[in-house]
C-alpha cells in the first residue's frame, strides 16, 4: 500500500510540471499582463511608461516565459508561489486562508450531497417504480439540468427574501448553511442516479436472495448487505465529482460572497494577475489529484477484494 501511494504521488509530479509548463507557455500569449491591466488607460506620459517598464522588470514580466518558468520553479522549491502584482502580497498569503474556506465549503457540500443523494438513491431503488422512485428520479433529472447559479439565486430568493429565514448577509455558521446546502443539493442529483442504478443491480443478485431467505431484516439487508457493494460505484462518482464540486464551489462562492479561492480566481482573471491564477491552478489541481488518490485508497477499504500491491 505504501509503495503504491508513493508511486501515485510521484506520478503526479510530471503531471503538475506539465500543467505549469502549459500555463507558462500560455502566459506568454496573453497580450496584457497585470501591470499593464492595472494602469491601462490611466498613464500616457513617458514618465509613466518608464514606471510601468520598471514595475514589469521588478516582477520579471519582461523576461521570456521559460526564464519566468525557471524562476517560478525555483521559488516553488522553497514554498514561494510568487507575489501578486495587484495586491503586492505573497500569493501564498492571498490564497492560504481562502483555500481553507473553499475546502470547508466543498466538504460540507459533499456531506450534504452524500446524505441526500445516497439516501434518495437507496429509497428509489428499494421502492422501484413507486411514487417515491418516480419523484426522486424526476427531481434528480431536474437537478442535473439546473444551472448552479440560477438555483443559488432561487434559493436566496426563497429563503432570504420571501421566507426571511436567513439574513441576506449572514454570519458564522449561517453563512455556510445556504451555499453548502445549495452546492450539496446540486451535486446530490448525479449521486442519487448512480446510487439508484447500482443498488438496483445489487438488489437483484443471488446473495441478496440468499440473505433474505436466511431471514435477514429489510433494514440490515439494505444497509449491511447491499449498500457496501453499491458504495464502490458511489466512490467512483465522488472522485469524478470532486473536480465538478470545485467548479460548482467557484460559482457558489461568487454568488454567496463566500471568500474562497473561486471568488479570488475570478478577480485575478479580471486583474490579469497571473501569479494568483497560477497559484490557484497549482493548488486546485494538486488538491484534485490528492483527493482522487485518497478515493483510490478508499476502494481497498470499501472492497477488500481490490488490492494495489499486485497491480
Amino acid at each position, binding site marked *: 500500500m505504501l509503495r503504491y501511494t508513493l508511486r501515485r504521488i510521484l506520478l503526479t509530479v510530471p503531471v503538475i510540471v506539465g500543467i505549469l509548463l502549459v500555463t507558462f507557455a500560455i502566459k506568454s500569449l496573453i497580450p496584457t499582463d497585470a501591470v499593464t491591466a492595472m494602469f491601462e488607460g490611466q498613464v500616457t506620459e513617458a514618465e509613466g511608461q518608464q514606471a510601468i517598464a520598471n514595475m514589469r522588470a521588478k516582477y520579471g514580466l519582461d523576461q521570456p516565459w521559460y526564464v519566468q518558468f525557471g524562476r517560478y520553479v525555483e521559488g516553488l522549491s522553497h514554498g514561494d508561489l510568487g507575489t501578486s502584482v495587484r495586491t503586492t502580497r505573497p500569493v501564498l498569503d492571498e490564497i492560504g486562508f481562502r483555500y481553507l474556506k473553499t475546502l470547508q465549503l466543498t466538504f460540507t457540500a459533499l456531506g450534504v450531497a452524500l446524505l441526500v443523494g445516497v439516501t434518495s438513491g437507496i429509497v428509489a431503488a428499494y421502492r422501484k417504480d413507486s411514487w417515491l422512485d418516480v419523484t426522486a428520479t424526476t427531481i434528480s433529472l431536474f437537478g442535473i439540468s439546473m444551472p448552479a447559479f440560477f438555483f443559488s439565486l432561487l434559493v436566496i430568493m426563497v429563503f432570504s427574501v420571501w421566507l426571511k429565514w436567513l439574513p441576506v448577509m449572514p454570519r458564522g455558521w449561517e453563512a455556510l448553511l445556504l451555499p453548502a446546502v445549495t452546492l450539496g443539493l446540486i451535486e446530490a442529483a448525479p449521486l442519487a442516479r448512480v446510487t439508484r442504478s447500482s443498488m438496483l443491480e445489487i438488489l437483484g443478485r443471488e446473495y441478496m436472495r440468499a440473505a433474505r431467505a436466511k431471514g435477514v431484516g429489510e433494514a440490515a439487508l439494505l444497509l449491511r448487505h447491499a449498500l457496501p457493494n453499491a458504495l464502490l460505484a458511489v466512490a467512483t462518482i465522488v472522485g469524478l465529482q470532486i473536480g465538478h464540486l470545485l467548479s460548482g464551489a467557484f460559482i457558489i462562492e461568487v454568488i454567496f460572497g463566500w471568500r474562497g479561492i473561486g471568488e479570488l480566481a475570478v478577480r485575478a482573471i479580471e486583474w490579469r494577475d497571473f501569479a494568483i*491564477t497560477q497559484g490557484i491552478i497549482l493548488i486546485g489541481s494538486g488538491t484534485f489529484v490528492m483527493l482522487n488518490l485518497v478515493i483510490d485508497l478508499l476502494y481497498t477499504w470499501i472492497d477488500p477484494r481490490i488490492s494495489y500491491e499486485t497491480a
Partner: protein
Amino acid sequence: MSAALMAGEIAEAAPRATGWRWLLRQLLRHKQAQIGGTVLLVIVVCAFIGPYIAPYDPLKVDALNRLLPPSGAHWFGTDELGRDMFSRILFGTRYFALICLVSVSIAAGFGVLLGLIAGAGSYWGDMAIMRAMDVVLAFPFILLILAVVAVLGPSLWTAMIAVGIAGVPNYARLVRGEVLSVKHEEYVEAMRALGAGPVRIMFGTVLPNVVSAIVVYTSYAMPVAVLSASALSFLGLGAQPPLPEWGAMVVGGRTFLRTAWWVVACPGMAIFVGVFSCNLLGNALRDVLDPRGT
C-alpha cells in the same frame, strides 16, 4: 458457417446499414425523446426565425419602461434597461444553439481525431497523446477553463472554445478505448487484407463502428457544456453584455432579485428548459443505443 446463419447475421446487421434512419424511428417512439426533441426543435427554429418574429429589438433601451412585470405588451416583462425580455430570450436561442454546436464540435472533433491517432498509431504517439490528455484531465474543469479565459480574454467565443478544450480528453479516451477494442476485429483485418490504407481503415471502417459510443457520450457532454458556458457568462468570463445570452442575462438581473424576479427567472428557466430537453433526449438515446447502461 451455414447460409442460414449468415443470413441471420446479415438480417441482424441490416438496421445498422440504415443506422440513422433506424435510430430516428426508435427515437420517435420514445416518449422522453418526443418531449426533449420537440423543445430542442423549437429552440432551433427560433434561432433561425427569431429575428423575424421578435416583437421588439432585443438591444433597444427604453428608459421609460424599465423593469415592467410580464404583461400583454411585454410577455416576459422588461429588464433594467427597459429591453423586452421575450425578444431577448428569443434571440438567446441562437447563442444556446451556437454553444451546443461549437463547444461540442471542438471537443468531439479534436477528441475523436486524437483518440483515433492514439488508438491506431504507434506506441510513442499513443503515449504522447494520452499523457497530454492526462495533464488536461488533471485540471479540474473550471481551472482549465479559467486558464483559457485568462489567455483569450472573456467573450462568448472564448467560453465556447474553453468548454470545448476541456471536453477533448474525455472524447480522446473514449475513442482510443473503442478503437483498441475493434482494431483487431476480422472486418478491420479484412479491409487491411484488401489493401486499404490506414487513413481509409480509420475513417471508413473503424470510425463508423465507434460512432454509437460517441453519440452516447455526447448525450452526456452536451448538457454539461451548455451549463458550463452559461456559468462562465454568469461569472462575467463568457458572453458580454448587451449580448442576449441567457447566462449573461441572469447576471444583469441579479441586483433586482427582490423587485423584479422575472429578469432572473426568465433566462434562468430558459437555460433549465433547454438543458432539461437535452437530458431527456440523451436519456432516450442511451435507452436506444446502449441498453446496458440504463
